[in-house]
């Protein structure tokens, strides 16, 4: 079973929900930190850092001796990662989505694909949680292939929790695709509601079952609750606006460890998700 934790807005508590849900699940789980631009689940879970395995994408390299500047590659590339204006193509690695099309359409076989490093994947053990995280190299804009590399570490058998980046862009889609359930974390503020509606649009377009966790209940207003009622969206869990939670978070502690009275909330969230997905464990 694969469960993704997402939100429209940043800072709503995705990682808080992901790490505490992972710890409270009751059986060993795999947690994938797919927020590859700023992974931080490991800061809460601890554990010894594992080996960093570099991740590469394939980008074109042009043999100028074979190239006759016909321009087929440039006409094919939707992202303008390869452009022919002079005697040979110019390649812009940062634009390349690594589809390999340019090499296939080149009539002279002048293009071969070469490795371009985009980041690393690391797996570590933290108690009952096996954590895999992706870390995008600074200056790299092509994050989805790194999310795919993180997802390749999924091992069948144990539940998998995927911590998504904020927003609704390609990296989020790469994280949410082919999961069984999505937990959308929001806060009861106009900003939380606005971005929740975007995230709901996204999961509906992806046709994924989902529910909402409202964090910091007690601040803001009741528009998130009212909107979820109107849309028929289930609120799976409400986390109260408790100063002690913020204090534990500020020290990098797991909520279920710092305040054991909240462990039950996350166990019941795990139960609700299992019930919604229709599996026993």
């Amino acid at each position, binding site marked *: 079973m694969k469960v993704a934790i997402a939100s429209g807005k940043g800072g709503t508590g995705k990682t808080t929900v992901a790490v505490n849900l992972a710890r409270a699940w009751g059986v060993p789980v795999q947690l994938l930190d797919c927020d590859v631009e700023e992974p931080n689940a490991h800061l809460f879970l601890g554990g010894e850092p594992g080996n960093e395995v570099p991740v590469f994408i394939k980008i074109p390299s042009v043999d100028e001796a074979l190239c006759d500047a016909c321009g087929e590659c*440039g006409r094919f590339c939707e*992202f*303008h990662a390869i*452009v022919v*204006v002079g005697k040979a193509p*110019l390649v812009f690695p940062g*634009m390349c989505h690594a589809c390999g099309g340019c090499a296939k359409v080149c009539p002279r076989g002048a293009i071969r694909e070469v490795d371009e490093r985009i980041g690393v994947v690391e797996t570590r053990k933290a108690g009952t949680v096996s954590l895999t995280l992706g870390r995008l190299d600074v200056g790299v804009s092509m994050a989805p292939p790194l999310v795919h590399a993180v997802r390749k570490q999924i091992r069948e058998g144990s539940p998998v929790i995927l911590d998504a980046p904020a927003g609704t862009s390609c990296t989020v889609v790469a994280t949410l695709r082919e999961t069984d359930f999505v937990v959308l974390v929001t806060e009861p503020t106009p900003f939380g509601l606005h971005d929740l509606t975007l995230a709901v649009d996204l999961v509906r377009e992806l046709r994924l079952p989902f529910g909402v966790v409202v964090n910091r209940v007690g601040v803001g207003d009741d528009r998130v609750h009212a909107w979820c009622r109107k849309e028929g969206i289930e609120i799976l869990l409400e986390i109260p606006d408790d100063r002690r939670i913020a204090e534990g978070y500020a020290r990098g502690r797991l909520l279920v460890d710092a305040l054991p009275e909240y462990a039950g909330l996350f166990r019941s969230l795990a139960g609700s998700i299992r019930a919604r997905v229709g599996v026993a464990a």
Partner: protein
Amino acid sequence: MNIVFSTSGDSLDAPLDARFGRAPKFLLYDLEAGLARLIDNKEGRAASQGAGIQAAESVARAGAGAVVTGHCGPKAFAVLRTAGIKVYSCRAATVGEALAQYRSGALVEQTEADVAGHHA
């Protein structure tokens, strides 16, 4: 030689657009014939990424020998340089003024991009 100006309008009186990649249009001026024609930068403007690359391809295909614009990013500059197109940065208010500055030799050719790109 054809010289290309980034602009939001359609004549020599129109404003010179400070952006290259996301300029609405390009005015291509034939220096010898004294004739102007417009190139729509529809593709470049609508691109989520790579606007400069597309704009540079368009002006290269149109047969430009020089580009006069406000600012040009690194990818557009690389394409223009590869196509043998000279790039001049200019702060003139209108295309006509920019043309006059070019003719008087007041514009200095850029040797590198003068603004940072938006992506790696």
